[in-house]
Protein backbone atom coordinates (compact mmCIF):
# COMPACT_ATOMS: atom_id res chain seq x y z
CA UNK A 1 0.00 0.00 0.00
CA UNK A 2 1.34 3.43 -0.84
CA UNK A 3 1.74 5.92 1.91
CA UNK A 4 -0.62 8.89 2.11
CA UNK A 5 1.55 11.97 1.73
CA UNK A 6 -0.50 13.69 4.41
CA UNK A 7 -0.07 10.98 7.05
CA UNK A 8 2.88 12.88 8.51
CA UNK A 9 0.52 15.70 9.48
CA UNK A 10 -1.68 13.47 11.66
CA UNK A 11 -0.16 14.57 14.99
CA UNK A 12 -0.62 18.25 14.17
CA UNK A 13 -4.14 17.67 12.85
CA UNK A 14 -5.00 15.82 16.06
CA UNK A 15 -3.79 18.82 18.05
CA UNK A 16 -5.76 21.14 15.80
CA UNK A 17 -8.94 19.09 16.15
CA UNK A 18 -8.72 19.28 19.91
CA UNK A 19 -9.00 23.09 19.80
CA UNK A 20 -12.25 24.66 20.94
CA UNK A 21 -14.96 24.95 18.30
CA UNK A 22 -16.47 28.21 17.10
CA UNK A 23 -15.18 31.67 17.81
CA UNK A 24 -12.78 30.53 20.54
CA UNK A 25 -10.67 28.76 17.92
CA UNK A 26 -7.72 31.08 17.28
CA UNK A 27 -7.11 29.71 13.79
CA UNK A 28 -10.52 30.65 12.43
CA UNK A 29 -10.54 34.34 13.29
CA UNK A 30 -11.60 36.50 10.40
CA UNK A 31 -11.95 40.27 10.17
CA UNK A 32 -15.49 40.95 8.97
CA UNK A 33 -14.78 44.63 8.68
CA UNK A 34 -11.72 46.70 9.56
CA UNK A 35 -12.77 50.06 10.97
CA UNK A 36 -9.40 51.65 11.73
CA UNK A 37 -5.80 50.65 12.54
CA UNK A 38 -7.01 49.63 16.01
CA UNK A 39 -10.58 48.37 15.60
CA UNK A 40 -12.40 45.73 13.56
CA UNK A 41 -15.63 43.77 13.54
CA UNK A 42 -14.92 40.16 14.51
CA UNK A 43 -17.73 37.66 15.17
CA UNK A 44 -20.18 40.55 14.70
CA UNK A 45 -18.58 42.43 17.60
CA UNK A 46 -16.50 45.59 17.62
CA UNK A 47 -13.07 44.44 18.70
CA UNK A 48 -9.89 46.25 19.69
CA UNK A 49 -6.93 45.08 17.67
CA UNK A 50 -4.08 44.58 20.13
CA UNK A 51 -1.87 42.29 18.06
CA UNK A 52 -1.37 43.51 14.50
CA UNK A 53 2.20 44.90 14.44
CA UNK A 54 0.64 48.08 13.05
CA UNK A 55 3.09 50.11 15.14
CA UNK A 56 2.53 53.50 13.50
CA UNK A 57 -1.14 53.00 12.65
CA UNK A 58 -0.17 53.67 9.05
CA UNK A 59 -2.80 51.42 7.40
CA UNK A 60 -5.44 54.17 7.36
CA UNK A 61 -3.18 57.19 7.00
CA UNK A 62 -5.00 59.51 4.61
CA UNK A 63 -1.86 60.57 2.71
CA UNK A 64 -0.81 56.95 2.20
CA UNK A 65 -4.31 55.93 1.11
CA UNK A 66 -4.51 58.81 -1.35
CA UNK A 67 -1.10 57.92 -2.81
CA UNK A 68 -2.29 54.32 -3.21
CA UNK A 69 -5.58 55.41 -4.86
CA UNK A 70 -3.73 57.68 -7.30
CA UNK A 71 -1.31 54.89 -8.23
CA UNK A 72 -4.17 52.42 -8.63
CA UNK A 73 -5.97 54.79 -11.02
CA UNK A 74 -2.84 55.63 -12.97
CA UNK A 75 -1.06 52.26 -13.12
CA UNK A 76 -3.63 49.53 -12.46
CA UNK A 77 -4.00 46.73 -9.95
CA UNK A 78 -0.73 44.84 -10.48
CA UNK A 79 2.48 44.56 -12.47
CA UNK A 80 1.97 40.90 -13.54
CA UNK A 81 5.70 40.53 -13.81
CA UNK A 82 9.06 40.15 -12.14
CA UNK A 83 11.40 43.03 -11.44
CA UNK A 84 13.75 41.61 -14.08
CA UNK A 85 11.05 41.47 -16.77
CA UNK A 86 8.13 43.90 -17.01
CA UNK A 87 7.67 44.45 -13.26
CA UNK A 88 9.95 47.43 -12.68
CA UNK A 89 7.97 50.68 -12.89
CA UNK A 90 9.46 54.08 -12.24
CA UNK A 91 7.68 53.99 -8.91
CA UNK A 92 9.62 50.87 -7.81
CA UNK A 93 12.82 52.73 -8.55
CA UNK A 94 11.47 55.77 -6.73
CA UNK A 95 10.71 53.60 -3.68
CA UNK A 96 14.30 52.33 -3.74
CA UNK A 97 15.54 55.94 -3.93
CA UNK A 98 13.33 56.78 -0.94
CA UNK A 99 14.85 53.87 1.00
CA UNK A 100 18.37 55.02 0.13
CA UNK A 101 17.54 58.49 1.41
CA UNK A 102 15.80 57.06 4.51
CA UNK A 103 18.89 55.01 5.43
CA UNK A 104 21.49 57.29 3.86
CA UNK A 105 22.69 54.17 2.03
CA UNK A 106 24.25 53.59 -1.38
CA UNK A 107 21.99 50.74 -2.46
CA UNK A 108 18.46 49.50 -1.85
CA UNK A 109 16.56 46.56 -3.29
CA UNK A 110 12.84 46.06 -2.80
CA UNK A 111 11.39 42.55 -2.49
CA UNK A 112 7.76 41.46 -2.62
CA UNK A 113 7.70 40.48 1.08
CA UNK A 114 9.96 40.79 4.10
CA UNK A 115 10.13 36.99 4.27
CA UNK A 116 11.51 36.92 0.73
CA UNK A 117 14.03 39.65 1.54
CA UNK A 118 15.59 37.46 4.26
CA UNK A 119 15.25 34.33 2.18
CA UNK A 120 16.85 35.98 -0.84
CA UNK A 121 19.68 37.86 0.81
CA UNK A 122 20.79 35.10 3.20
CA UNK A 123 20.50 32.25 0.69
CA UNK A 124 22.32 34.22 -2.03
CA UNK A 125 24.99 36.22 -0.21
CA UNK A 126 26.30 33.18 1.69
CA UNK A 127 27.47 30.55 -0.79
CA UNK A 128 28.72 26.95 -0.46
CA UNK A 129 32.13 27.88 1.00
CA UNK A 130 30.73 30.49 3.38
CA UNK A 131 29.23 30.41 6.87
CA UNK A 132 25.99 31.90 8.16
CA UNK A 133 25.96 32.44 11.91
CA UNK A 134 22.50 33.04 13.32
CA UNK A 135 20.94 33.87 16.68
CA UNK A 136 19.08 30.90 18.20
CA UNK A 137 15.83 32.90 18.39
CA UNK A 138 15.88 34.00 14.75
CA UNK A 139 12.66 34.44 12.81
CA UNK A 140 11.50 31.59 10.55
CA UNK A 141 12.48 33.57 7.45
CA UNK A 142 16.12 33.57 8.64
CA UNK A 143 16.12 29.84 9.33
CA UNK A 144 14.46 29.28 5.94
CA UNK A 145 17.03 31.49 4.19
CA UNK A 146 19.71 29.24 5.71
CA UNK A 147 17.87 26.10 4.61
CA UNK A 148 17.51 27.42 1.07
CA UNK A 149 21.18 28.38 0.73
CA UNK A 150 24.28 26.21 0.56
CA UNK A 151 26.36 27.78 3.31
CA UNK A 152 27.40 26.08 6.54
CA UNK A 153 24.96 27.19 9.24
CA UNK A 154 26.03 27.79 12.83
CA UNK A 155 23.73 28.93 15.62
CA UNK A 156 24.69 30.92 18.72
CA UNK A 157 22.85 31.42 22.00
CA UNK A 158 20.30 34.24 21.87
CA UNK A 159 21.87 37.68 22.38
CA UNK A 160 25.00 36.13 23.95
CA UNK A 161 28.20 37.91 22.81
CA UNK A 162 30.58 35.35 24.37
CA UNK A 163 28.73 32.47 22.77
CA UNK A 164 28.98 34.21 19.37
CA UNK A 165 32.66 34.96 19.93
CA UNK A 166 33.45 31.31 20.63
CA UNK A 167 31.72 30.16 17.47
CA UNK A 168 33.34 32.74 15.24
CA UNK A 169 36.76 31.93 16.72
CA UNK A 170 36.25 28.21 15.98
CA UNK A 171 35.23 28.93 12.39
CA UNK A 172 38.22 31.23 11.86
CA UNK A 173 40.59 28.66 13.38
CA UNK A 174 39.51 25.95 10.96
CA UNK A 175 38.83 28.21 7.97
CA UNK A 176 40.76 31.51 8.11
CA UNK A 177 39.62 32.65 4.64
CA UNK A 178 35.92 31.80 4.84
CA UNK A 179 33.25 34.39 4.20
CA UNK A 180 31.02 34.75 7.26
CA UNK A 181 27.60 36.38 7.51
CA UNK A 182 26.31 37.03 11.03
CA UNK A 183 22.53 37.49 11.08
CA UNK A 184 20.91 39.49 13.90
CA UNK A 185 17.52 41.08 14.55
CA UNK A 186 17.11 44.60 15.93
CA UNK A 187 14.09 43.58 17.99
CA UNK A 188 13.06 39.98 18.60
CA UNK A 189 9.34 40.02 18.00
CA UNK A 190 8.01 37.62 20.60
CA UNK A 191 9.44 39.27 23.72
CA UNK A 192 10.47 42.60 22.19
CA UNK A 193 14.07 42.36 23.41
CA UNK A 194 16.77 44.22 21.49
CA UNK A 195 20.02 42.71 20.29
CA UNK A 196 23.10 44.18 22.04
CA UNK A 197 24.36 45.35 18.67
CA UNK A 198 27.39 47.22 20.02
CA UNK A 199 28.88 44.06 21.48
CA UNK A 200 27.72 41.73 18.73
CA UNK A 201 28.95 43.92 15.86
CA UNK A 202 32.31 44.47 17.58
CA UNK A 203 32.85 40.74 17.99
CA UNK A 204 31.74 40.05 14.43
CA UNK A 205 34.11 42.65 13.02
CA UNK A 206 36.96 41.27 15.17
CA UNK A 207 36.53 38.05 13.21
CA UNK A 208 36.09 39.82 9.87
CA UNK A 209 32.47 38.77 9.49
CA UNK A 210 29.77 40.59 7.56
CA UNK A 211 26.70 41.61 9.53
CA UNK A 212 23.04 41.59 8.55
CA UNK A 213 20.48 43.16 10.88
CA UNK A 214 16.79 42.50 10.38
CA UNK A 215 14.89 45.61 11.51
CA UNK A 216 11.41 44.26 10.71
CA UNK A 217 10.04 45.11 14.16
CA UNK A 218 12.20 48.19 14.73
CA UNK A 219 11.88 50.31 11.57
CA UNK A 220 9.77 53.29 12.51
CA UNK A 221 9.99 52.40 16.19
CA UNK A 222 13.60 53.06 17.23
CA UNK A 223 16.29 55.55 16.22
CA UNK A 224 16.14 59.28 15.82
CA UNK A 225 14.71 59.07 12.31
CA UNK A 226 13.09 55.67 12.73
CA UNK A 227 15.76 53.60 11.00
CA UNK A 228 15.75 51.04 13.77
CA UNK A 229 17.95 49.62 16.51
CA UNK A 230 21.25 49.98 14.61
CA UNK A 231 20.59 53.71 14.48
CA UNK A 232 19.39 53.84 18.10
CA UNK A 233 22.54 52.04 19.30
CA UNK A 234 24.83 54.07 17.04
CA UNK A 235 26.31 51.16 15.09
CA UNK A 236 24.95 51.72 11.58
CA UNK A 237 28.48 52.07 10.19
CA UNK A 238 29.25 48.54 11.45
CA UNK A 239 26.29 46.90 9.72
CA UNK A 240 26.71 45.62 6.15
CA UNK A 241 23.09 44.75 5.32
CA UNK A 242 19.84 46.00 6.80
CA UNK A 243 16.73 44.01 5.98
CA UNK A 244 13.23 45.18 6.77
CA UNK A 245 9.58 44.96 5.93
CA UNK A 246 6.78 47.29 4.86
CA UNK A 247 4.19 45.10 6.58
CA UNK A 248 4.46 46.55 10.09
CA UNK A 249 5.28 50.24 10.70
CA UNK A 250 4.97 51.04 6.99
CA UNK A 251 1.42 49.65 6.93
CA UNK A 252 1.40 47.63 3.71
CA UNK A 253 3.45 44.67 2.40
CA UNK A 254 6.90 44.23 0.91
CA UNK A 255 10.49 43.85 2.03
CA UNK A 256 13.83 45.44 1.36
CA UNK A 257 17.55 45.25 1.89
CA UNK A 258 19.87 48.28 1.98
CA UNK A 259 23.66 48.18 1.88
CA UNK A 260 26.78 50.16 1.06
CA UNK A 261 28.54 47.16 -0.43
CA UNK A 262 29.94 48.32 -3.79
CA UNK A 263 28.74 45.17 -5.58
CA UNK A 264 25.34 44.99 -3.90
CA UNK A 265 23.38 45.50 -7.14
CA UNK A 266 24.62 42.06 -8.29
CA UNK A 267 21.79 40.61 -6.22
CA UNK A 268 19.33 41.73 -8.91
CA UNK A 269 21.01 39.23 -11.24
CA UNK A 270 21.40 36.24 -8.93
CA UNK A 271 18.84 36.43 -6.13
CA UNK A 272 16.04 34.03 -6.97
CA UNK A 273 13.38 35.27 -4.48
CA UNK A 274 13.88 38.69 -6.13
CA UNK A 275 13.84 37.45 -9.72
CA UNK A 276 11.23 34.71 -9.79
CA UNK A 277 8.20 36.43 -8.34
CA UNK A 278 6.00 39.32 -9.42
CA UNK A 279 6.89 42.78 -8.15
CA UNK A 280 4.73 44.75 -5.73
CA UNK A 281 1.55 46.36 -7.12
CA UNK A 282 1.83 50.11 -7.81
CA UNK A 283 -0.66 51.04 -5.07
CA UNK A 284 1.46 49.21 -2.48
CA UNK A 285 4.62 50.84 -3.78
CA UNK A 286 2.99 54.28 -3.57
CA UNK A 287 1.74 53.90 0.00
CA UNK A 288 5.08 52.46 1.15
CA UNK A 289 6.95 55.39 -0.38
CA UNK A 290 4.65 57.91 1.30
CA UNK A 291 4.78 56.08 4.66
CA UNK A 292 8.60 56.08 4.70
CA UNK A 293 8.60 59.84 4.19
CA UNK A 294 6.12 60.26 7.04
CA UNK A 295 7.99 57.89 9.39
CA UNK A 296 11.30 59.73 8.97
CA UNK A 297 9.65 62.92 10.23
CA UNK A 298 7.25 61.34 12.69
CA UNK A 299 6.78 62.18 16.34
CA UNK A 300 4.76 59.00 16.92
CA UNK A 301 7.63 56.94 18.34
CA UNK A 302 7.35 58.41 21.84
CA UNK A 303 3.59 57.93 21.78
CA UNK A 304 3.95 54.28 20.77
CA UNK A 305 6.45 53.49 23.51
CA UNK A 306 4.31 55.35 26.09
CA UNK A 307 1.36 53.19 25.09
CA UNK A 308 3.42 50.03 25.45
CA UNK A 309 4.84 51.06 28.82
CA UNK A 310 1.35 51.79 30.09
CA UNK A 311 0.01 48.36 29.14
CA UNK A 312 3.13 46.56 30.34
CA UNK A 313 3.10 48.32 33.72
CA UNK A 314 -0.62 47.71 34.15
CA UNK A 315 -0.31 44.00 33.40
CA UNK A 316 2.70 43.65 35.71
CA UNK A 317 0.95 45.51 38.51
CA UNK A 318 -2.10 43.27 38.12
CA UNK A 319 0.16 40.34 38.90
CA UNK A 320 0.65 38.70 35.52
CA UNK A 321 3.85 36.80 34.80
CA UNK A 322 5.43 39.15 32.26
CA UNK A 323 7.53 38.20 29.26
CA UNK A 324 8.17 41.85 28.35
CA UNK A 325 9.33 45.01 30.07
CA UNK A 326 7.68 47.79 28.05
CA UNK A 327 10.84 49.01 26.36
CA UNK A 328 9.55 47.83 22.99
CA UNK A 329 6.04 47.96 21.47
CA UNK A 330 5.41 44.39 22.65
CA UNK A 331 3.47 43.44 25.77
CA UNK A 332 3.30 39.71 26.46
CA UNK A 333 2.13 37.74 29.46
CA UNK A 334 3.35 34.22 30.09
CA UNK A 335 0.69 31.57 30.55
CA UNK A 336 1.72 28.26 32.13
CA UNK A 337 0.03 25.72 29.87
CA UNK A 338 -0.90 25.65 26.21
CA UNK A 339 -4.50 24.75 27.14
CA UNK A 340 -4.72 27.77 29.43
CA UNK A 341 -3.26 30.02 26.73
CA UNK A 342 -5.83 28.84 24.19
CA UNK A 343 -8.64 29.34 26.70
CA UNK A 344 -7.31 32.81 27.55
CA UNK A 345 -7.28 33.77 23.90
CA UNK A 346 -10.89 32.59 23.46
CA UNK A 347 -12.07 34.60 26.46
CA UNK A 348 -10.28 37.72 25.19
CA UNK A 349 -11.86 37.55 21.75
CA UNK A 350 -15.30 37.13 23.36
CA UNK A 351 -14.56 40.22 25.43
CA UNK A 352 -13.70 42.16 22.28
CA UNK A 353 -9.90 42.20 22.37
CA UNK A 354 -7.81 40.55 19.67
CA UNK A 355 -4.36 39.51 20.90
CA UNK A 356 -1.83 37.03 19.48
CA UNK A 357 -1.75 33.51 20.82
CA UNK A 358 1.95 32.68 20.52
CA UNK A 359 3.08 29.12 21.22
CA UNK A 360 6.32 27.11 20.88
CA UNK A 361 8.20 26.62 18.62
CA UNK A 362 7.40 30.17 17.43
CA UNK A 363 8.27 31.44 20.92
CA UNK A 364 11.59 31.25 22.79
CA UNK A 365 12.19 28.98 25.80
CA UNK A 366 8.98 27.01 25.25
CA UNK A 367 6.82 29.91 26.47
CA UNK A 368 3.06 30.18 25.90
CA UNK A 369 2.31 33.86 25.36
CA UNK A 370 -0.62 36.22 25.09
CA UNK A 371 1.17 38.75 22.95
CA UNK A 372 0.08 42.32 22.23
CA UNK A 373 1.78 44.67 19.82
CA UNK A 374 0.91 48.26 20.59
CA UNK A 375 0.24 50.99 18.07
CA UNK A 376 0.79 54.72 18.24
CA UNK A 377 -2.84 54.85 17.10
CA UNK A 378 -4.13 53.17 20.28
CA UNK A 379 -5.92 55.62 22.58
CA UNK A 380 -5.51 55.68 26.33
CA UNK A 381 -9.11 54.47 26.60
CA UNK A 382 -8.36 51.47 24.39
CA UNK A 383 -5.35 50.53 26.50
CA UNK A 384 -7.44 50.81 29.66
CA UNK A 385 -10.01 48.56 28.01
CA UNK A 386 -7.37 45.95 27.09
CA UNK A 387 -6.04 46.03 30.64
CA UNK A 388 -9.51 45.71 32.13
CA UNK A 389 -10.25 42.66 29.96
CA UNK A 390 -6.87 41.04 30.65
CA UNK A 391 -7.58 41.34 34.37
CA UNK A 392 -11.17 40.12 34.02
CA UNK A 393 -10.09 37.05 32.06
CA UNK A 394 -7.05 36.50 34.29
CA UNK A 395 -9.34 36.33 37.33
CA UNK A 396 -11.94 34.22 35.55
CA UNK A 397 -9.32 31.61 34.63
CA UNK A 398 -7.62 31.77 38.01
CA UNK A 399 -4.35 33.32 36.82
CA UNK A 400 -4.87 36.33 39.05
CA UNK A 401 -5.96 36.42 42.63
CA UNK A 402 -7.50 39.67 43.83
CA UNK A 403 -7.16 43.45 44.07
CA UNK A 404 -7.16 44.12 40.31
CA UNK A 405 -8.37 47.71 40.94
CA UNK A 406 -4.78 48.66 41.77
CA UNK A 407 -3.74 47.94 38.22
CA UNK A 408 -6.01 50.58 36.78
CA UNK A 409 -4.77 53.28 39.14
Amino acid at each position, binding site marked *: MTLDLFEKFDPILNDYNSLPAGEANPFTVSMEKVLSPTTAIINGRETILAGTNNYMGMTFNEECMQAARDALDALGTGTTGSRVLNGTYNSHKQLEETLKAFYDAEHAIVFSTGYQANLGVIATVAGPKDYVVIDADSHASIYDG*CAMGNAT*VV*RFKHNDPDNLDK*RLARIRKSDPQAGILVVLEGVYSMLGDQAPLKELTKISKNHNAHILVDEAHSIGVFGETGRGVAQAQGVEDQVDFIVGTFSKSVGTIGGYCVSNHPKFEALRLVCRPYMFTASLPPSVVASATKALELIANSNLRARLLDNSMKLNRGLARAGFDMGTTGESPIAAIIVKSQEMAIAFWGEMIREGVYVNLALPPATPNGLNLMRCSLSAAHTVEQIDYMLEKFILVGRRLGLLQDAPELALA
Partner: protein
Amino acid sequence: MTQNVDRIFDQICELIKPFNKKNVVISKDTYFSVDLELDSLAVMDLLSEIEDEFDITIPLNLLPDLETVGQFTEAVEKLLSEQ
Protein backbone atom coordinates in the same frame (compact mmCIF):
# COMPACT_ATOMS: atom_id res chain seq x y z
CA MET B 1 39.28 4.50 18.37
CA THR B 2 36.52 2.52 20.11
CA GLN B 3 37.73 3.83 23.41
CA ASN B 4 37.56 7.35 22.04
CA VAL B 5 34.02 6.85 20.76
CA ASP B 6 32.95 5.42 24.12
CA ARG B 7 34.39 8.43 25.92
CA ILE B 8 32.56 10.81 23.57
CA PHE B 9 29.35 8.85 24.10
CA ASP B 10 29.72 9.15 27.88
CA GLN B 11 30.33 12.89 27.64
CA ILE B 12 27.27 13.35 25.41
CA CYS B 13 25.15 11.30 27.83
CA GLU B 14 26.24 13.67 30.58
CA LEU B 15 25.12 16.67 28.47
CA ILE B 16 21.79 15.03 27.68
CA LYS B 17 20.91 14.69 31.38
CA PRO B 18 19.25 18.13 31.75
CA PHE B 19 17.21 17.41 28.59
CA ASN B 20 16.20 13.91 29.74
CA LYS B 21 13.10 14.88 31.69
CA LYS B 22 11.72 11.34 31.83
CA ASN B 23 15.02 9.71 32.84
CA VAL B 24 15.07 7.48 29.78
CA VAL B 25 17.99 5.04 29.78
CA ILE B 26 20.32 6.33 27.06
CA SER B 27 21.89 4.04 24.49
CA LYS B 28 23.40 4.71 21.09
CA ASP B 29 20.00 3.80 19.58
CA THR B 30 18.07 6.37 21.60
CA TYR B 31 16.13 8.71 19.31
CA PHE B 32 15.98 12.38 20.32
CA SER B 33 12.46 12.83 18.96
CA VAL B 34 10.71 9.56 19.78
CA ASP B 35 12.50 8.45 22.94
CA LEU B 36 13.56 11.72 24.56
CA GLU B 37 10.62 13.68 23.11
CA LEU B 38 12.88 16.60 22.21
CA ASP B 39 11.61 19.08 19.62
CA SER B 40 13.90 20.56 16.99
CA LEU B 41 14.73 23.59 19.17
CA ALA B 42 15.78 21.41 22.11
CA VAL B 43 17.99 19.33 19.85
CA MET B 44 19.64 22.54 18.60
CA ASP B 45 20.20 23.63 22.22
CA LEU B 46 21.80 20.28 22.98
CA LEU B 47 23.95 20.62 19.86
CA SER B 48 25.16 23.96 21.20
CA GLU B 49 26.19 22.35 24.51
CA ILE B 50 28.05 19.63 22.64
CA GLU B 51 29.87 22.20 20.49
CA ASP B 52 31.18 23.95 23.59
CA GLU B 53 32.06 20.72 25.42
CA PHE B 54 34.25 19.49 22.54
CA ASP B 55 35.23 22.92 21.18
CA ILE B 56 34.06 22.08 17.66
CA THR B 57 31.67 23.54 15.09
CA ILE B 58 28.67 21.29 14.41
CA PRO B 59 26.81 22.84 11.46
CA LEU B 60 23.01 22.83 11.66
CA ASN B 61 23.17 21.36 8.15
CA LEU B 62 24.05 17.99 9.74
CA LEU B 63 20.93 17.83 11.91
CA PRO B 64 18.65 15.91 9.50
CA ASP B 65 21.08 12.97 9.77
CA LEU B 66 21.51 13.16 13.52
CA GLU B 67 18.46 11.40 14.90
CA THR B 68 20.06 9.16 17.52
CA VAL B 69 22.64 9.55 20.27
CA GLY B 70 24.87 7.13 18.37
CA GLN B 71 24.75 9.23 15.20
CA PHE B 72 25.62 12.32 17.23
CA THR B 73 28.54 10.48 18.82
CA GLU B 74 29.89 9.42 15.43
CA ALA B 75 29.53 12.96 14.06
CA VAL B 76 31.48 14.40 16.98
CA GLU B 77 34.18 11.73 16.62
CA LYS B 78 34.48 12.56 12.91
CA LEU B 79 34.63 16.32 13.49
CA LEU B 80 37.28 15.87 16.18
CA SER B 81 39.40 13.65 13.94
CA GLU B 82 39.25 16.25 11.16
CA GLN B 83 40.79 18.92 13.37
